[in-house]
């Protein structure tokens, strides 16, 4: 198990390398540069800036330098946020985004799985149709609609929670963003679990478990739940991706100092190093997620073999 994990982790390094290389050259191929402004700078200043950031060097030299710095764990200076390195920017914002994303993912799982199971147990009843319809709405409404609505309801009318803003270690400020961010994956998970649970409940081994006279709790938790979670495991990586992109919207509406905004801003500003840093963080996270899903598969179904 540990060996499998380490082998796969080592295998992720070349993947990240390829992603970095492609991103490096793609962003350079985009027209414009980090120092282009509406008013063109005097050529001397431009030349100074270019040489200060090493942009006057041939692109292969820049690429080599970047990789060298990366190998030392240095993501380079930000081109747009003066006096900040990319490491500092991401280091400050990432914990916020990570907390937001982890809580949203946890909420989606903790609520989505029981809701889906509930709907499956009441298959074709009004409760089933109602929850599944709400789930469709949950998937369809974007978070930039949900979050202001929640803010209006719980912040402005009820005065229970702050509408926006951020304080360290304050769960109150995170509640609404987490809820808005969790809603789409929660809805997807509920629907997935309902479908797979229905299938599992019709299977021969559940019939055996019923014939054994097991109490309903044991039947569901010990015999039915694990196989019913397989599709949820497959959905985890895209769910994490959707939460990461979703956090851009949610963070800017709720005024959270996360890293969600850096990706788009960095790309628009041609902040080459910041974009690369974000790509590295996001792709590492996704690769790690894929690895966790593989381990999860092996646990959910012992017929899956890790090698």
């Amino acid at each position, binding site marked *: 198990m540990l060996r499998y994990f380490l082998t796969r982790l080592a295998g992720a390094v070349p993947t990240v390398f390829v992603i970095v290389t492609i991103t490096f050259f793609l962003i350079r191929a985009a027209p414009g540069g980090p120092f282009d402004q509406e008013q063109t700078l005097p050529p001397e200043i431009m030349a100074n800036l270019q040489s200060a950031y090493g942009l006057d060097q041939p692109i292969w030299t820049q690429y080599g330098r970047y990789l060298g710095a990366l190998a030392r764990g240095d993501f380079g200076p930000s081109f747009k946020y003066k006096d900040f390195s990319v490491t500092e920017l991401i280091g400050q914002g990432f914990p916020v985004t990570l907390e937001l994303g982890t809580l949203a993912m946890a909420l989606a799982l903790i609520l989505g799985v029981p809701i889906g199971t509930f709907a499956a147990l009441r298959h074709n009843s009004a409760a089933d149709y109602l929850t599944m319809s709400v789930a469709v709405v949950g998937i369809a409404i974007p978070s930039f609609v949900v979050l202001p609505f929640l803010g209006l309801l719980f912040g402005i009318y009820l005065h229970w929670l702050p509408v926006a803003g951020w304080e360290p270690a304050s769960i109150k400020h995170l509640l609404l963003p987490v809820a808005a961010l969790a809603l789409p994956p929660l809805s997807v998970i509920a629907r997935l679990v309902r479908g797979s649970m229905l299938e599992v409940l019709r299977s021969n*081994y559940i019939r*055996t478990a*019923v*014939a*054994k*006279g*097991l109490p*309903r709790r*044991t039947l569901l938790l010990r015999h039915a739940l694990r196989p019913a979670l397989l599709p949820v495991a497959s959905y985890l990586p895209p769910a994490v991706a959707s939460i990461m992109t979703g956090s851009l919207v949610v963070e800017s509406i709720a005024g959270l100092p996360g890293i969600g905004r850096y990706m788009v801003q960095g790309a628009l500003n041609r902040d080459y190093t910041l974009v690369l840093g974000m790509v590295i963080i996001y792709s590492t996270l996704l690769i790690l997620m894929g690895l966790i899903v593989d381990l999860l598969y092996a646990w959910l179904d*012992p017929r899956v073999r890790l090698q």
Partner: protein
Amino acid sequence: MLPTLRVENLNVNFTQRAAAIAAVRQVSLSVWPGECVGVVGESGSGKTQVFMAVMGLLAGNAAVDGSVRFGEEEILGLDRERLNSIRGSKLTMIFQDPMTSLTPHLKVGEQLAEVLVCHAGMSWSAARDAARRMLERVRVPEAQRRMNQYPHELSGGLRQRVMIGMSLLCDPALVVADEPTTALDVTVQAQIIELLRAVRAEVGMSLVLISHDLAVVAGLADRILVMYAGRVVESASAAGLFRQARHPYTAELLKCIPSLSGPRLERLPTLRGQPPRAGDELVGCAFAARCPRVAERCRVERPLLRDGGEGAAMACHYPLP
């Protein structure tokens, strides 16, 4: 003496697209203590559904009426909690397909032990011990190692042995075996039948053996019920049935058993025609369309199950002598 199981006037109907389909019609049967009853019929004859109803395992769209007494207790329509205290312990079932009838993600030992934890209130470690001893009793080699394996690591025959062991954990009064050998190789089939015979001699429980194969039932059953189109059409001691079937359907079935002795046949004998479909409204005898002895009366008047002497019964106007 009280029968272990007494089924009276059992009807099972399935609702499909607003139409009711009768799977079991007015079936009555008894299983006496220590007795082995074979239930034989083609697929769709309702033989499995009778015992699904007994076990409370019918699908959600099934409607059932009649009476099922297990010992002294009426168990049809019993609340789930009370039913759960009976099924799996005193009343158990072995299923047809051992490949899919065990939970894939739980170790064999856990699936056995949970029965004892649930019904006998044993601790997990005591239950595991008892489960291992049971695996040895149903002749699973290397029982200790098998305990820690998953079902997919076992062969079909071994899995069926596990299922049989699972059914015996709480000293059942009645075990229902639904086509226990159908999904297995011929050589393994013989081993499983042999195991059931040995277990019955050892434990002395009643056994219901459901099969489409008269030959499988022949070696084990004391009494055989033949079902056709949801009804019992003949009931006789195994010896009596094989000596002289009274119902033409049974007689035709017996002709279809291939024999090793006797002349070589170009073609195996078969029963002509199809059984009536489950949704069909039947007037007269359900077997009339395929019966070699059919007469005008058979098409208009349904024959009732009547006494044929020597504990036998058949539902036929013109039974074989």
